[in-house]
């Protein structure tokens, strides 16, 4: 397998708020290669958005990366200065934001967004050339090229999101991070957008990181899935294995609580309790208060990642090979 485009080692991001320190991302490691999709799944407070932002150095104040490294094509991102990071954004790593309604500048034409982006990173390109590229990109994402002359409010939500995607791939990045790209959209449009992202991934050879709370979306389309809970990576495996053989109790609970329309007479089971307050996370394993298989050790120690298959990792003492049953 080719060397990974992006690899993350023991990344930890903390927010230093007035009320205390919040560890939004805690010891996350993964890697992703060309034409792969990694699905990052988590609920509110899981740290998935912070993770996404940290990949392009955009963690908002008062957050900072306090540990770990991010390598993009073997170059270390965390130690780059602001200038280098800015060059990186758009060209190597691109971010698609969640809300297409407010991510486009309402007083600029669609074309201007492209021109500004392209000329910032490639100053030698003329306006005409940039617009021509914009038209081609719009066509690639399924929008009529003439709409370069429209303003954002003249486009529907689905179309605006497609424009965002076109902007994201405009400079041929190696990695695209899409944070809840379809949450604000209807299910039919959502399906189209996800199809689009994946066909672009294939034709441009990018790596795609899909961040979402919707396990169903990533199951269908990802190569690998990482499930996050309270800032930690609790399970990381190929999607097929997460579906057929989920190991972490949270992952198992999630799968049992999501209605699947292809099953009839499904009995759903709820996960008791609610996600923890990150200012005061539970001691030991962060999931133990809600876990029906928790035992003593879970409350005392934080479980490390255990390898349970060639590419399957779980953060749970149940899988400690050295444990006495």
């Amino acid at each position, binding site marked *: 397998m080719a060397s990974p485009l992006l690899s993350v080692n023991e990344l930890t991001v903390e927010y230093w708020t007035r009320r205390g320190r919040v560890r939004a991302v805690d010891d996350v490691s993964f890697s992703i290669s060309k034409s792969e999709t990694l699905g990052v799944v988590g609920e509110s407070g899981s740290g998935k958005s912070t993770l996404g932002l940290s990949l392009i150095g955009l963690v908002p104040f008062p957050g900072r990366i306090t540990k770990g490294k991010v390598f993009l094509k073997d170059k270390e991102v965390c130690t780059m200065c602001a200038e280098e990071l800015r060059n990186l954004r758009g060209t190597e790593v691109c971010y698609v934001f969640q809300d297409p309604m407010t991510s486009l500048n309402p007083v600029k034409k669609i074309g201007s967004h492209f021109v500004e982006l392209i000329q910032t990173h490639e100053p030698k390109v003329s306006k005409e050339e940039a617009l021509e590229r914009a038209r081609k990109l719009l066509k690639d994402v399924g929008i009529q090229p003439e709409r370069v002359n429209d303003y954002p409010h003249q486009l529907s939500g689905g179309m605006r999101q497609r424009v965002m995607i076109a902007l994201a791939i405009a400079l041929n990045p190696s990695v695209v991070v899409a944070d809840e790209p379809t949450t604000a959209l209807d*299910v039919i449009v*959502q399906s189209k957008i996800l199809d689009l992202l994946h066909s672009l991934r294939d034709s441009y050879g990018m790596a795609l990181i899909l961040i979402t709370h919707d396990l*169903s979306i990533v*199951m269908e389309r990802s190569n690998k899935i990482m499930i996050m809970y309270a800032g930690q990576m609790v399970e990381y495996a190929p999607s097929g294995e997460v579906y057929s053989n989920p190991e972490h109790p949270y992952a198992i609970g999630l799968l049992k609580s999501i209605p699947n*329309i*292809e099953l009839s007479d499904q009995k759903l089971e*709820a*996960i008791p309790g609610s996600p923890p307050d990150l200012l005061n996370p539970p001691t030991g394993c962060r999931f133990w208060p809600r876990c029906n298989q928790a035992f003593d050790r879970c409350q005392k120690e934080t479980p490390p990642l255990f390898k349970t298959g060639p590419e399957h990792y779980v953060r749970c003492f149940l899988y400690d090979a050295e444990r006495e049953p």
Partner: protein
Amino acid sequence: MSQDEILRVENLTKYYPVEKSFLEKAFARSKHFVKAVDNVSFTVKRGEIFTLAGESGCGKTTTGKIVVRLISPTSGKIFFNNIEITELKNEELRMLKRKMQIIFQDPYASFNPRMKIGETVGHPLTIHGLAEGDEKRKRVAELLDRVGLTPAEKFVDLYPHQMSGGQRQRAAMARSLILQPEFIVADEPVSMIDVSLRTAIVDLMLNLRKDFGLTYLFITHDLAIAKYISDRIGIMYLGRIVELGDKETIFSNPIHPYTQALLAAIPVPDPDRKRKVTELIGDVPSAINIPSGCRFHTRCRYAKHECGKEEPKLVEVSSGHFVACPSNSELGSKFAEN
């Protein structure tokens, strides 16, 4: 109308005039309307969960709010327990509100930030003069316990911002139950709640139905939840019901092309599933300019010339299964094969 039916809605419409500038108002010939709800009819049987499903802008929330009389319809009739309630006012309307309640989508915005939860939940009792003081406190505590907010003494004194979204939705349910209603409209009650908590809320609703003998009008855009909770489903598009039937039928034999596209688009947590790609042309038209004839024909790949001429009516294709598609019987069999 039989004793079985708790709610009947006939030809409901809600048109909002489009706001215009002074000049436009002075010189415009015709008025433009946003046709949020455009001739909707359905019935809900006592004790069942009837779901209105569809994407945003289809009119389902507006319909729900009209049913509980939060919004008045432009035209049409609503019957509750055999009595017409469309025009009720003042005291009679207030009495009605004891029987019909609503749970809102947004657990963050549906509570007065300056009232404690106990006060909010108990306030309807004060409004209707049903209980005060100790009696009120007792009823509030009982309900909070029942919806899973235990110990009640702790939650009674909390402010909304001190509770999580899931807890707030439970409190919302307690608030809607305190007047002992027969009928509850649940407007997307779990879409703003974390995925792992949704099942708990939905199961709570099902249990409450059993214990309190409730009937629900459930509104959602999430068809997977709709399949889990509903007895019967009505699919809405651009202000109209295009298909209606019991749950099994809709999911196993969807006939209307829109229903089919909708079902095919729902993500399924199975990496090996083969996707049935259904191409829908273009985007949803604006509710101000609804296409002529069948409002879906502009996006339908089976559309024929006739489809643009006359608005199709809901026709019963099998017992309890209604579809609004002109050539539905032939198309029906064609689609089932795909």
